[in-house]
């Protein structure tokens, strides 16, 4: 597949793909484009910032507040978790009632002595895969 980029401030930003069939690459580009179009607004003690879902490692709920955890920051969102979930691409998967994980940001899965499956994210955060969501996680990872 030939790849071309035209930097033109006058032209509307768009991604066009001519492909013989829908491949994983086409799907991935489509997902990236959709994610890029969805901008979240999060805030911490100091500032309010815009962030792309792709930069978020996971979305969590704590004390009825929704947070986006990036590589370095924890930003509070003004959305409900289900509202965020509805806007996210296939690259995100709900791992338990209060956590939506970015598959690209998962470092590894660990078994715990309690018989639970723990997800360790690249930013150091860890959470558990609930039994209810395990099937979904497996499917998203291609099982």
């Amino acid at each position, binding site marked *: 597949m030939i790849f071309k980029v035209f930097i033109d401030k006058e032209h509307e930003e768009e991604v066009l793909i001519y492909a013989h069939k829908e491949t994983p690459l086409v799907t991935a580009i489509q997902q990236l484009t959709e994610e890029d179009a969805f901008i979240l607004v999060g805030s911490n003690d100091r500032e309010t910032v815009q962030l792309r879902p792709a930069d978020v490692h996971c979305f969590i709920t704590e004390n009825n507040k929704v947070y986006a955890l990036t590589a370095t920051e924890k930003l509070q969102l003004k959305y409900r978790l289900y509202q965020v979930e509805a806007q996210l691409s296939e690259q995100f998967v709900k791992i338990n009632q209060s956590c939506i994980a970015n598959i690209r940001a998962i470092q*590894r899965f660990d*078994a715990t*002595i*309690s*018989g*639970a*499956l723990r997800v360790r994210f690249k930013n150091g955060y860890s959470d558990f895969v609930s039994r209810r969501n395990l099937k979904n996680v497996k499917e998203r*990872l291609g099982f």
Partner: protein
Amino acid sequence: MNQYVKQFFHRGLLFGGFGPIVLGIVYAILQETVRGFSLTGREVLLAILSTYLLAFVQAGVSVFNQIDHWPLAKSMLCHFGSLYLTYSACYLINTWIPFAPQVLLIFTAIFAAVYLIIWLTVYLIIKATGNRLNTKLN
């Protein structure tokens, strides 16, 4: 309130009711299979309350293993200890086992063996699942 204490009570309240349900099934089977099986109201009440507590603790103690800053030995000891004490107390209160040293020794050995087998089985299954998922991440 500490989040782990909250989770302990939350899980306990969710699953505590299963204790008396299992008890009822066992009593129904005993009534059908054991001739002359009967219980007093007091025995039934004691059995219901103690099995509710048993299921409550059984569900709640899984929290011990999720306290990340606890060392593995402490988590397991608290998990095993809480279950062992609750099960022993429940069995003794209901006189399902007699209060005799030999019997308690056998009960302890069986309890520890079953605990180890169940733990090992669950752990190995989850570990295998985790390993399979990790191959898809890399």
